[in-house]
């Protein structure tokens, strides 16, 4: 169930250290090895049956070989001695052929902070989960759909991940993490669709039956949707839609590299959201999917990104930190990384409004379950376009009055943050673009819808 026995007994940090030793012996002035070893399983269902069901045992080593200020990166899936020798050769060849990076700040050094094992990051129940257990959860989702007379689609994933980082400056870090995610879309006979999702470190805490019911009930409620005209509407965004705001803002602005390249909207001290908006990145918060250190072996720091609507910080990796003369915040991705650092553990503060009362604050507006296929139209203004999906409703006088056909929006996500009028007390843990995200639902004063579709 848990992958190969050999992998279960492997000391991945020792593998990383062996690669660093080989690189140093081959003439590297600095070297770093990152090992990721996963056992990932995913059961996928559609038309209320399991149609894809997969498992993967993988291991990968990424080596940075540095000569002075010249850096070569090579990776391999062969972790035996011959594989390590070859990857060292390839990285060394690259390092000898590239120009110096004038502002190369060196590989990270241990910064004195202990890299703590985060007990909340790993659940044995997830690591030991079986295809039979996933099938049981899927059958619970399908049963809820059957009961409601709708059809179930979705997936249930469980992953165990080992990350080891060693470098020649005595960084040595090893963590085991687990995560799981169940998502489901329900489709009803009259065109209705609904969605539900949950992510957790411990797969056994995911309530498949509840998620199945949530999606099924929404699919029933969105049957025979009517058209509404595009235009500006106040909205309530469910957590599934709010995740997209976090992901996009993380990608477009919360990275030190985006600021250094002048393509970010972030200016420290600048107001971008209402007072109700506070966003942090915190790898240790057990509400999310915790991570002790980044892919450079640097312990994660808690970074306030937006405090009561005001830009408070960005995340750094070693290279962007060196440029600004600060320390890495522990947000590096595997090298080479043209995208720069990324906040992998974003959390938005909850507010004071009970979730079910958010809709009551809309005189005439829309309730949006989730977004689909969003893409930036203008990076610096964080203008994004996308569609609504799987549950869009017209609200009048604080009551849901009808399901509506899906709409296209073209909206600055910064203006959306500025228009946040209410934040739900409750939050959900979901899987974002790259990491775990913890978000409330939001009521926003205005959101611009620019088109409509036929369903």
């Amino acid at each position: 169930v848990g992958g190969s026995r050999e992998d279960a007994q492997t000391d991945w940090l020792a593998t990383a250290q062996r690669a660093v030793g080989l690189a140093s012996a081959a003439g590297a002035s600095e070297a770093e090895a990152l090992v990721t070893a996963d056992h990932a399983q995913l059961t996928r269902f559609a038309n209320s049956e399991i149609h894809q069901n997969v498992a993967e045992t993988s291991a990968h080593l990424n080596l940075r070989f540095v000569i002075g200020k010249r850096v070569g990166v090579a990776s391999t899936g062969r972790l035996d001695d011959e594989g390590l020798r070859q990857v060292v050769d390839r990285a060394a060849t690259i390092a000898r052929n590239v120009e110096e990076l004038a502002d190369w700040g060196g590989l990270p050094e241990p910064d004195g902070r202990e890299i703590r094992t985060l007990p909340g990051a790993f659940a044995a129940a997830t690591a030991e989960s079986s295809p039979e257990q996933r099938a049981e959860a899927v059958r619970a989702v399908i049963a809820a759909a059957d009961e409601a007379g709708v059809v179930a689609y979705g997936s249930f994933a469980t992953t165990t991940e080992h990350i080891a980082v060693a470098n020649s400056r005595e960084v040595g870090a090893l963590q085991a993490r687990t995560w799981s995610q169940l998502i489901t879309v329900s489709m009803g006979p009259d065109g209705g669709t609904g969605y539900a999702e949950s992510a957790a470190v411990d797969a056994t805490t995911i309530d498949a039956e509840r998620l199945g019911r949530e999606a099924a009930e929404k699919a029933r409620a969105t049957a025979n949707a009517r058209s509404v005209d595009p235009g500006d509407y106040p909205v309530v965004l469910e957590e599934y839609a709010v995740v997209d705001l976090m992901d996009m803002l993380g990608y477009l602005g919360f990275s030190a590299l985006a600021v250094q390249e002048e393509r970010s909207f972030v200016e420290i001290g600048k107001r971008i959201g209402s007072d109700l908006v506070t966003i942090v990145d915190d790898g240790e918060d057990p509400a999310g999917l915790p991570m002790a250190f980044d892919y450079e072996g640097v312990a994660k720091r808690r970074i306030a990104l937006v405090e009561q609507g005001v830009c408070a910080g960005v995340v750094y990796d070693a290279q962007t930190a060196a440029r600004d003369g600060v320390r890495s915040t522990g947000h590096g991705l595997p090298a080479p990384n043209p995208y720069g650092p990324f906040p992998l553990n974003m959390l938005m503060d909850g507010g004071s409004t009970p979730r079910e009362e958010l809709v009551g604050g809309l005189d005439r507006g829309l309730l949006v379950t989730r977004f689909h296929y969003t893409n930036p139209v203008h990076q610096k203004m964080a203008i994004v376009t996308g569609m609504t999906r799987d549950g869009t409703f017209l609200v009048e006088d604080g009551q849901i009055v009808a399901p509506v056909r899906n709409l296209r929006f073209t909206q600055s996500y910064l203006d959306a943050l500025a228009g946040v009028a209410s934040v739900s007390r409750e939050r959900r843990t979901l899987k974002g673009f790259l990491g775990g995200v913890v978000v409330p639902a939001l009521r926003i004063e205005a959101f611009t819808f620019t088109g409509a579709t036929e369903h």
Partner: protein
Amino acid sequence: MRDLTDRGLDTAASRGATYADVRIVRRLDESIAVKSSRVEGVASGESEGFGVRVLVDGAWGFASSYRLEPAEVDRVAAEAVRIARASATALRRPVVLDDRPPAHGSYESRVQEDPFGVPLETKIGDLLAADQAMKRVTGIAFTESTYAAQREWKTFAASDGSFTEQTITHVGSAVEANAVEGDEHQRRSYPDNGGGWQAAGYEYIRGLDLIGHAEEYAEEAVALLSAPQCPPGRRTVVLDPSQLYMQVHESCGHPTELDRVYGTEASYAGTSFLTTDKLDEGFRYGSDLVTIVADATVPGGMGSFGWDDEGVAAQAVPLVRNGIFSGYLTSRETAPRIGRRSGGAMRADGWNRIPLIRMTNINLLPVDGMSLDDIVADTDDGLYLAQCRSWSIDDRRLNFQFATEVAYEISGGKKGRLLKNPTYTGITYELWRSCDAIGDASSYRMLGTPNCGKGEPGQIGHVGHAVSGARFRDVQVGVLG
């Protein structure tokens, strides 16, 4: 390799699989990233492993591992069978595969100059020179230039006796100039912001002449900062191949994937408006000029191969013929449900992923009569839109919105001033029905995207699109607030 594939097939059969296939894949890749005239990253990667796919009691199971060892092959094949038995506990429609002759042979994509044999310093030098040419242009804030190559060796064996070996090489490169002023950020890229990829060798990279285009594109990025906003309205638009290929990708390629139609991507990418009743009724997808073919046989396309990843030979399948919807991208499992044989569109992203229905090369065939220049000359009032900058489309592939890097005003048959931040939006079949001109073979070229996402767990596909440029009438053009 054959001993390992035989072992996997034997183990799967002995555990109860009625069908099994084993793929062993080795992938080599190399990438170079230059930012603002400094080499930001050079990487070389190698990945190797195998995947075993089985049918047990009409249900699928798949397991994979990076350990190419006999004992691990046994473990993984057994795991695949166990997973399939778990699948069978939630099964309503047992899988039936179409018949196909066992596949045998080898295939190699055409490469004149091996990209992995060209010295690294040459490749870095070529890219750096192009990047520096952009950076020299006054007003450029930052530049990005990329090069990448990938080679895959694939061995496929199936329980029906099929055994094939393929070697496929893809390369891509692009330069991108960025100009920033206040909140305004404009960019121009050549030949494509996705990287201008083909199935080819380094000769293709040399043929792109990145350095010869660098200055022109950088100057245009700077000029866009002071260009007027593209005004909204219903307009005639001419789509350059650098934009048209993405329109084909999103609004024809994805909705003709038959697995989407049957709902198996519903929880992730979505479904399709091209339901099977539309195939039966001869749905009018576009104007008479529009003929779109999924062709896995054309040299240079990233969707070309000898056999797909379930051993079906490469072929050309019409998707739209003279405007009428006429076919799907299919697999051995889905094709029998519409009474057809597999069109050979099952492709997997490496050893650790199952094959899914993917685009091959989705080509909008050129139309004799007018060159792309003739089409512009034939347009009194319109916009010429080039280079995809942003894309979005709904979950049934109907309502789309694209932004392009640049619009050129067309007035009296001539391309004129630049307009910035153009977007256009519409409904898929309405746009294609409004197509009243398609360029001839003189501008027909193979483009492609190396980052087509699909499936859970996620898979990245390399797909090709050959297009020549086309004109559409009465299209809604928008503008940024």
